[in-house]
């Protein structure tokens, strides 16, 4: 991977005197203090928003002298709140104090610059202008669209909480706070994206998260310069230590309980408004093979299934390569009884095993990719067409050996075992180099490839923490904690938790 050292990427290294160029100029709203001339104010608001047609302007009358002017964007605001809290009370307002009390009920804020108020208007608040006053009020009338906090489709568990994050950052933080009611849980907001102005939050537990990691994440968040931030994908790349690596260095999850458990382990969460997935950093290689199910089921079973997941990783990466190596270099190792069965199967395949495997793997990826986007009924059809028809026909036609179909099917199943989607994508990519090397050098090639992977894994870091932790700085206690799921009644001493804080500890998901 030293090869990639040649590509300069300036993510974390700002050269002296070199300014990062701005992709987009900040929106051009010069400051505009609230004028005493109401006409100017009204025109200013409407011009700033380019006379957009969902801007509603209302003139309200009270017993007080001078009328009130109300602005709100009807698509963003909750008119229910306005009518119950403002319109119905207007009749009873006859003094300044009465007006202030009413506005306080509306959770109002006094603002001197109309230019600031306009940007608040865009997030669904309303502007209330009073004649003859050089300030205005903004009323919180935002309406929020929420869906149910239902279980995420791609991270289901048998037992455990069935709530998942949604597209609203406030609700997401609430879900986490419900699980961790502790004063040391800290939320840091920041706004990213020049055009989209997306709110992001960083959550961590003070005293559990490593301060260095927290600082580093803050630093990297500040560096992000994009004009639109619609989801976590952008943040991920800024957070990774090595973007050229095939291994993901973060976990993205939609499960609230998984996120909360990771927080308790001293990890940091990054949430983005409008995206139900949450980033968890820093992670280790084995975090990807843990599921909340391990901790909700009995510990022997939990261990067994965790082991199955790790084995599935090895299978998914090496199985096609091993098969290719065996039938083109080392068929001596096939047991007596199977030799002729396999020879029968591969006798009339018209091309080398590598090509055969590639065709099948790529076909499978096609079917998978097609199945994702399609509605369920058609998706099932695709599954049947792909699985049964292509699989069976291709063997009968003599293009692909039946053993190759078995190998590819096993590989595919193993690559879907891992609970985290990013890792399963990585596994699918990792097997192609192994296949190519196996077809060139047989087992030797597989060993080369796996050695390179291992070296890379040992070198990889996630926010400066070792990625291959219980193995790559070898730590016996860590192995007991991370690799094996001990019964909840067994407590290892807390010392190593302190030393290995946030590079993972016992109850990491």
């Amino acid at each position, binding site marked *: 991977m030293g*090869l990639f050292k*040649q*590509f300069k990427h300036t993510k974390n290294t700002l050269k002296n005197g070199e300014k990062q160029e701005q992709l987009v100029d900040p929106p051009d709203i010069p400051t505009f203090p609230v004028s005493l001339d109401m006409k100017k104010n009204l025109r200013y608001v409407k011009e700033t928003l380019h006379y957009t047609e969902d801007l509603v302007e209302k003139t309200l009358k009270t017993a007080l002298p001078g009328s009130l002017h109300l602005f709100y964007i009807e698509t963003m605001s909750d008119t229910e709140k306005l009518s119950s809290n403002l319109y119905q009370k207007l009749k009873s307002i006859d003094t300044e104090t009465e007006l202030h009390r009413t506005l306080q009920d509306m959770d109002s804020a006094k603002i001197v610059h109309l230019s600031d108020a306009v940007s608040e208007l865009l997030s669904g608040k309303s502007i209330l202008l009073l004649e003859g006053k050089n300030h205005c009020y903004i009323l919180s009338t935002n309406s929020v669209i929420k869906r149910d906090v239902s279980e995420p489709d791609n991270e289901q568990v048998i037992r455990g909480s069935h709530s998942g994050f949604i597209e609203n950052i406030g609700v997401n933080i609430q879900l986490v706070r419900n699980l961790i009611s502790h004063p040391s849980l800290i939320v840091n907001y920041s706004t990213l994206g020049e055009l989209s102005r997306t709110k992001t939050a960083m959550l961590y537990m003070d005293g559990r998260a490593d301060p260095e990691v927290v600082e580093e994440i803050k630093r990297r968040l500040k560096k992000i310069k994009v004009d639109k931030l619609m989801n976590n994908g952008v943040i991920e790349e800024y957070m990774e230590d090595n973007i050229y690596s095939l291994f993901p260095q973060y976990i993205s999850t939609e499960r609230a309980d998984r996120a909360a458990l990771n927080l308790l382990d001293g990890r940091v969460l990054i949430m983005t408004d409008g995206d139900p997935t949450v980033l968890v950093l820093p992670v280790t290689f084995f975090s990807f093979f843990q599921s909340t199910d391990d901790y909700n089921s009995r510990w022997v079973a939990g261990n067994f299934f965790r082991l199955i997941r790790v084995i599935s990783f090895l299978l998914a990466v090496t199985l096609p390569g091993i098969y290719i190596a*065996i*039938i*083109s*270099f080392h*068929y*001596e190792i*096939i047991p*007596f009884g199977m*030799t*002729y069965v*396999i*020879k*029968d199967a*591969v*006798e*009339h*395949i018209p091309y*080398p*095993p590598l090509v055969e495997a590639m065709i099948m793997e790529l076909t499978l990826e096609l079917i998978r990719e097609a199945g994702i986007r399609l509605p369920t009924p058609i998706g099932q059809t695709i599954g049947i067409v792909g699985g049964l028809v292509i699989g069976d026909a291709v063997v009968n036609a003599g293009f692909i050996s039946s053993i190759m179909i078995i190998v590819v099917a096993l590989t595919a199943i193993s690559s879907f075992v891992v609970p985290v989607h990013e890792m399963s994508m990585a596994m699918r990519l990792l097997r192609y180099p192994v296949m*190519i090397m196996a*077809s*060139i*050098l*047989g087992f030797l090639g597989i060993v080369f490839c796996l050695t390179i992977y291992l070296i890379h894994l040992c070198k990889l870091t996630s926010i400066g923490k070792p990625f291959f932790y219980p193995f790559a700085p070898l730590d016996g206690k860590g192995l007991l904690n991370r690799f094996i799921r001990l019964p909840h009644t067994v407590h290892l001493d807390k010392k190593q938790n302190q030393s290995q804080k946030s590079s993972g500890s016992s109850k990491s998901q």
Partner: protein
Amino acid sequence: MKRPVLLSLALLILLTGCWDSRQLRDITIAKSAALDLLEDGKYQSTISSPVPKQHEAEERSQKVSGVGHTIREARMALDGKVSERIDTAKMRVLVLGEPLARTNIYPPLDVMYRDPRSSLGAKIAVYDGMGSELINSKLTDKPRTSEFLAELLDTAESNSIVDKVNVQLICPIIFDPGQDVVLPYLGMEGDTPRLIGGALFNGDTMTGSLSVEDSTLLMLMKGKLGSATFLTEKVHDDKEDMPSNFITLRLRDTLTKLQVDVNHETNEVTATVDLTMKVEAIEYPHDELHEKENIAKLNTKLEEKFNEEAEQIFSTLQEANCDALGIGRRVLVYHPDFWDSVNWNETYPNITIKPNIQVELIGHGIIN
């Protein structure tokens, strides 16, 4: 800098030839082979390889022979007769024709030991006749000949008729001056192959043979007990019907001890083979095994019989000059001076070997 690195990497990956790949589909796998010595002194090598279903030949296996001055040359001649490359890595059985075994077996085996991919785990057996005859024999209603032979030898091992031998295991024994090898001896009965006992070797030359029963007893005296070993002995002469005169035993456990004494005065070597067998009667129509004295009687009767047979076996062994029990090895280790002063090959036929076989009947069946 970037371009040359990438380019060289690409070249390294893409232009590395797959010259040494051996595609399974381009290879004829010899499942069993026979080596023979023809009358004109040339070697003949015969292989049998299964034919894939896809070729839909009537024969389920092809058998080819090649002749040459050396085994390698014979192999080359074979290669010329087969469309694909012949590979012996998955060979299960290697049959040596008796004419070849009677001269010497090491030179033809030399090929196997030099090729890193040859199947050293293949079973090896001597055939009473030309080995090609056995390979070419057509078996009706049985699996392919090669598999049949392999399983036949497997069963023989578990019945302790022959030692567990393969191409690798016999090599050190052939070169051991104080030990000789006994190989399975196959023959034909009608048109089906069967095991007819053990082939006795002196060094790398076959010099005699033993029957199946004798081979079993010899294996027991060597301390090799298979998982299902049976012996049948005639213990009475007075019963009216034939089976009642016999007892069939299943061996539960054996204990062997080989004691070799050298008298330095007279240069006489005496070897004593102690063998204690714990047996179970699995067929004995005469029964009456609940009485202790009957059991004791039977034990003595069996001991007499076995000792008699053992002496017979030893004389056969000495006639063939086959030191199957490894007596020479013990002489070499415990009496090196004596070993150096004699030629063991000449001494062995004249030494005294005494059997001492004890039989204990421990199981009586399930009736009582």
